[in-house]
């Protein structure tokens, strides 16, 4: 909380993007989260990503459930559409919204409780269906709103602020996503915007379900020694497996890479993700090897980060189900409501 709003003045060098908006135009209300919350840094990264992609804010839907994380859509893109759903039910709303208006760029923000406990089934099925949605899981390992109980992502052996040891195994969102056939899987850290922003951009441009697990320390309840989701712990144990540079379709490629050092993956719209491999032999398009690699790091007590897996041939839910591509609001009334004669005809088919 802060008593004053963020002043509207900005640095003289602040530049507009291709559609004439500055980064400040992508901001939302002032955050009410605790000072130092990782979620706020993710919000800043999301703002940066949308600005860099020249997205028109009114063509975005931002969705969330319940929890600290789920408050954050209020803090970016004040001019976008928003929906705060029932706890854990954001994927259903997103599925419906996407079906009704496939032109919307959708971003869902959730937390470890909202995703891995109450909304676990919803998350799984959204992945399975490959809903065209960027799903950001702000992962801090605790229930912050209810004063810091362990969440489902708390690592076994980590301790609470009071010293209590967690004995249960953690659900790892990234491994889960790889198992369920998610077509875009990444892990990042709120304190590393250089890594996070390109992943968010690639995720927004991915046609299908883009899952990003972002370690986001809870500064109030889970930033102590013994926590495996603290700033210091994450910095000490983060291993960047791949570095992803996102190059939008219309951009000129200016970065030069040493031959053989980069793996290019072309996305459905022609955008390119250049993977600079930090770990040797890592292949971000090989699901099984990615899984094995991440497990290996996990066993060693390390947190593998980066855009870990991408399926460039992803077919999203709309395409799979042959949903009419024109958004419903643009359909003529006669098509949306063809009348009782058409209904009778349809019903005849089921007799």
């Amino acid at each position: 909380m802060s008593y004053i709003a963020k002043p509207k003045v900005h640095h003289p060098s602040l530049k507009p993007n291709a559609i004439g908006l500055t980064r400040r135009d992508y901001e939302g209300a002032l955050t009410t989260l605790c000072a130092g919350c990782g979620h706020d840094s993710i919000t800043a990264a999301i703002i940066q990503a949308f600005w860099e992609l020249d997205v028109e804010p009114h063509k975005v839907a931002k969705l969330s459930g319940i929890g600290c994380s789920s408050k954050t859509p209020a803090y970016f893109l004040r001019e976008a559409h928003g929906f705060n759903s029932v706890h854990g039910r954001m994927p259903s709303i997103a599925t419906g919204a996407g079906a009704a208006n496939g032109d919307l760029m959708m971003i869902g923000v959730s937390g470890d409780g909202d995703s891995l406990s109450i909304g676990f089934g919803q998350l799984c099925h959204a992945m399975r269906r490959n809903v065209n949605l960027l799903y950001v899981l702000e992962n801090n390992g605790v229930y912050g709103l209810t004063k810091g109980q362990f969440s489902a992502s708390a690592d076994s052996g980590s301790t609470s602020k009071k010293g209590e040891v967690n004995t249960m195994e953690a659900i790892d969102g990234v491994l889960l996503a790889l198992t369920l056939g998610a077509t875009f899987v990444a892990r990042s850290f709120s304190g590393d915007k250089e890594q996070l922003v390109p992943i968010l951009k690639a995720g927004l441009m991915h046609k299908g379900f883009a899952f990003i697990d972002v370690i986001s320390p809870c500064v109030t309840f889970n930033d102590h020694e013994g926590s495996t989701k603290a700033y210091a712990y994450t910095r000490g144990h983060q291993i960047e497996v791949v570095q992803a540079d996102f190059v939008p379709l219309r951009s000129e490629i200016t970065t030069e890479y040493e031959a053989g050092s980069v793996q290019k993956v072309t996305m459905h719209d022609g955008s390119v993700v250049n993977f600079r491999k930090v770990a040797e032999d890592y292949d971000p398009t090989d699901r099984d090897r990615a899984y094995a690699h991440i497990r290996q790091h996990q066993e060693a007590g390390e947190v593998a980060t980066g855009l870990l897996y991408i399926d460039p041939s992803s077919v999203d839910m709309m395409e799979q189900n042959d949903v009419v591509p024109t958004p419903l609001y643009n359909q003529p009334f006669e098509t949306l409501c063809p009348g009782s004669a058409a209904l009778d005809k349809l019903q005849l088919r089921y007799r």
Partner: protein
Amino acid sequence: MRRTDVGNPDYFHKVVDCQWACPAHTNVPEYIRLIAQGRFDDAYIVNRQSNVFPGILGRTCDRPCEPACRRSRVDGKPVAICRLKRVAADQKNDVSARIPKAPEVKNGKKLALIGAGPASLTVANDLMPLGYDITIFEKGPRAGGLMRINIPSFRLPEEVLDEEIGYIVDMGVNMKYNTPVESLKAVLDSNEYDAVFVGTGAPKGKELVIPGRYDSDQIFIGIEWLESIHFGHVTSVGEKVLIIGVGNTAMDCCRSSKRLGATDVKVIARKTRKYFKASPWELEDAEEEQIDIVENLQPVRFVIEDGKLTGMEFDQFKSEEIDGKLVQETIGRVILPCDSVVLAIGQDNAFPWIERDIGLEFGKWDMPVVDKVTFMSTRDGVFFGGDSAFGPANIIWAVEQGHQAAISIHQFCQGEPLTDRPPQGQTLASTKMGLHEWSYSNNYDPVTRQKMIHVELPERFAKMTVEVEEGFTAEQTRKEVERCLNCDIQTNFTESACIECDACIDICPVDCLTMTVNDEEPVLRTHLKAPAEQLDQALYVSGALKQTGRVMVKDENVCLHCGLCAERCPTYAWDMRKFVLHLPYAGVPAPEGTVAEKEKVSL
């Protein structure tokens, strides 16, 4: 870069752009806050400590503070610092009880100050309370120097002068009016004085010797003419008046002409507007009074017909700026008709009364050789200050030089070495009042600079003494004080407490902050969240941070001092701390001050 040393008062002092730019280092943000609280007496006293003449300067100062003001880099217009000073002076109650007094028992040292202008008066102001027996020799009938005789009363009313000069004179200065000093040697040889201070200004207007100069009685020298108006010796002028020169004296001359009955007044400039010496606001005030400012003319001769001045002939130039330099080419001649001409092309010093064989060396331009730090001439015990020391400047420089000369005179009379200058001190104290509460108004107010209300033209032309500026109204004052960014409330960083959570960086509205790998300054300046291109604005650099070894860098340039970085900081690594600069004055060393505990962590 090396870790910034905030223990040196210069670092945070420089962040307070106005205070740093002010020759006397007036604590501007502090007095603006006091005005905001309606504490006009306190605001006046804070001013008076450093600049001695708040009421006078609040109307006439050259305002070096305003071009420096951070607000102008944020929304284009500086805070109206100067006119707020006037608010404090106008609204205060009787502050005479708070003006320093001279002790009954004197310290046995006698001083002679020559000339009763701002420099001498400042010396008297600083040294009277220490018990000196001071005599001021003034050639005119009253004190004030150029402040009284050269600045027209429509800009500076007599009551204001009388009050502020009175505070000093009434300490018991021995005033010798109508007593021009005709020989410095005589003063020195009298052995009456332990030290002598020369504050005689630059009283000689520059001449323009071209054909016809001495063929008319309607050709005047600016500062002499203003003086004659002041004393009532000149009460009229021709209908058409040309003012030659475009400095601040020219502005006073053209506006005075209007009040003496001239209907067509032109100010003639050799160069183009960008190169004018007059302050932009003085040019605006003149133009508001329907005065033409004509560029690109250089005087050739006065046109005299039948012994009467009828015009002036000029070379006309075409001006072009090439590589930042003004290149002028003559394109013809032009005659402008006129009845009177006032020459306002500059001032010179004149020391016909100082003998050249008394061990007081004169150097270039026939100016005395004066030490830039101690203000002592090459003759021990003879000090200079104000325009007489280094040529024409302005009142606020004269005041500051008076302060410095007073320190030297005191040390000289006490037998201490003059080069041991007393150091400055600083206090840094947190302004934190609660979780998100600060003891200053931290919210940014987007209100624009308030426009000074001026008296209507016919009314002001009717009399020489009608003050043009009405002063800010209460409502204007309320708005203008909120424009001050409180640059003295410093963002103070304690690196040991930082957990590198990015909260401060994300919240900063003006992208001042960056955590990055350390590097040399030129490289670092290009690697920040927003490029730090204002090279005279410092970078505040921390030591290596605990978790990543990066450094926190703050570009001071456009910081709003809104305190949001400190509000969003979970560990109190950022704090808003009030910086107070302690200045030394004669016999009053600056308190050393305290720096709040550096490594205090709240968790």
